[in-house]
């Protein structure tokens, strides 16, 4: 399909919820290397709550759906990453105001707002070895796809490819934030757990839109 409508969004969050439940142990394992091992848990909890909250809405527009999901994640996932993901969806919801469908152009704007919101709230810069290092190429790739009028499935797949490449690059960086920062040089060579979450988000979105 070439766009999301409000009728797809509950199913999209249901998918996020399923995928993060599946990835829970893998994320815990990644996070345990230089973090406090709670990432898998908080993401699974956060997206389960988001899916439930979006499902409960009746006749809501896309903006309300994303915003509701964000608030639900904030409440259910009381960790830094939970709060940052919540912020992403809440800020992203803003650009979907009044949209009945989300095609490549609007979804590109969504990812830009998502990235900017996370970077601002986390006071994070590119290269700090955080989720923003993957959100940035997702947003930029989506913007390029929007300019060339690429269909949404192809655009999201390109964004996913750039996210995977960026995740690889983060391995070489040294963490500047959170508990991982205390590990400094030891964090080099380790895949960043937060960045992995961003890859999962865009992959799930791409898979979903290719199937519907």
């Amino acid at each position: 399909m070439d766009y999301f409508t409000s009728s797809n969004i509950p199913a999209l969050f249901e998918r996020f919820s399923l995928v993060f439940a599946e990835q829970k142990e893998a994320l815990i394992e990644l996070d345990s290397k230089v973090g406090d091992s709670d990432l898998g848990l908080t993401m699974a909890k956060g997206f389960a709550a988001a899916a439930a909250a979006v499902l409960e809405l009746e006749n809501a527009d896309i903006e309300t759906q994303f915003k509701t999901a964000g608030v639900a994640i904030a409440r259910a996932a009381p960790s830094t990453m939970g709060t940052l993901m919540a912020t992403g969806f809440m800020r992203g919801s803003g650009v979907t105001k009044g949209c009945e469908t989300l095609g490549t152009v609007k979804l590109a704007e969504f990812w830009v707002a998502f990235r900017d919101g996370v970077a601002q709230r986390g006071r994070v810069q590119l290269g700090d070895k955080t989720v923003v290092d993957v959100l940035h190429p997702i947003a930029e790739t989506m913007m390029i796809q929007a300019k060339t009028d690429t269909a949404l499935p192809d655009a999201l797949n390109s964004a996913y490819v750039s996210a995977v490449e960026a995740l690889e690059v983060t391995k070489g960086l040294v963490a500047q934030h959170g508990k991982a920062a205390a590990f400094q040089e030891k964090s080099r060579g380790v895949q960043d757990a937060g960045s992995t979450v961003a890859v999962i988000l865009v992959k799930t979105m791409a898979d979903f839109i290719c199937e519907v």
Partner: protein
Amino acid sequence: MKKFLNNPENFVDEMLEGIYHAHPEVTSVGEDLRCFVRTKPVKGKVGLVTGGGSGHLPLFLGYVGDNMLDGAGVGGVFQSPSSEQVLEVTKYVDQGAGVLYLYGNYSGDLINFDMAGELADFEGIKTATVVGRDDVASSIVGEEHKRRGVAGIFFLYKVAGAAAAQMKPLNEVARLAEKASARTRTIGVALSPCIVPEIGKPSFNLGENEMEIGMGIHGENGITRKNMTPADEVVDEMMVRILAEQSYEVEQDVAVLINGLGATPLEELYVIYRRTAQVLEKAGAVIRHVFIGEFATSMEMAGASISVMQLDDELEPLVAAGANTPFFKHIKRQG
């Protein structure tokens, strides 16, 4: 490790149960013990909310009370409270005049308080934020916005608490708190590490005869680590950092806070104060208010910090005002 503990996981909640039982003037919002508020909010007053990790008593929740704060989000040891907890406290504390967030400049707290503010906005509650960033050892001049908040945040609580009690509006309370923040400087020194209960061993090591000047209240790196020197020399070295940023030529009046980090005897704090007063007075300062004791600790860390707030005609009466909280009693002082 010798500590009075049951299951380390229950440390924070058991501490809270003790506090609520001892002090009925504070309570929790709903089921979550970590949403800490005054039992009786004051109608129409700006609500003051703080929060941060546990392990620093009396900071943060200890200053919830009359003429001070209205609520606190209580995190695990050295961990931020969640945005949800801060939101619940905010909703309870708001009495129609809005809520001021006052907390230390740490990334986890910034993220969660900002998020709580955004969620509160959805609920029609106006919030403002002022952060404590008094630790001169944590960033250079010119990068004050990156500094950590330590014991000096007590002065922000005192000033904002007294201003809010006078029923000043949110923007005015925030302005005064910001002024207090901009005029407060702190420098600390650590003599021994602390132990987080759930970790069970020291988070860093300091040699038997070593001290670290500028160390943060979670063991963050300081400026220099060196062998112990006589107390006067330690104070002199610390005060150089504060004097480099404050001049008492025009505005002479100061308030001083000598804070113990958890395991340093009060006697030693007075030895520190003696020299601090000598240094300040030699530099032309007039000490108008003195607070000595444990205000912001780091579990059983040995060490101390010196905070100086430069006063003016607005700030001085707010520091002088009375206050009464479970952990801090202050009788109003005249002039």
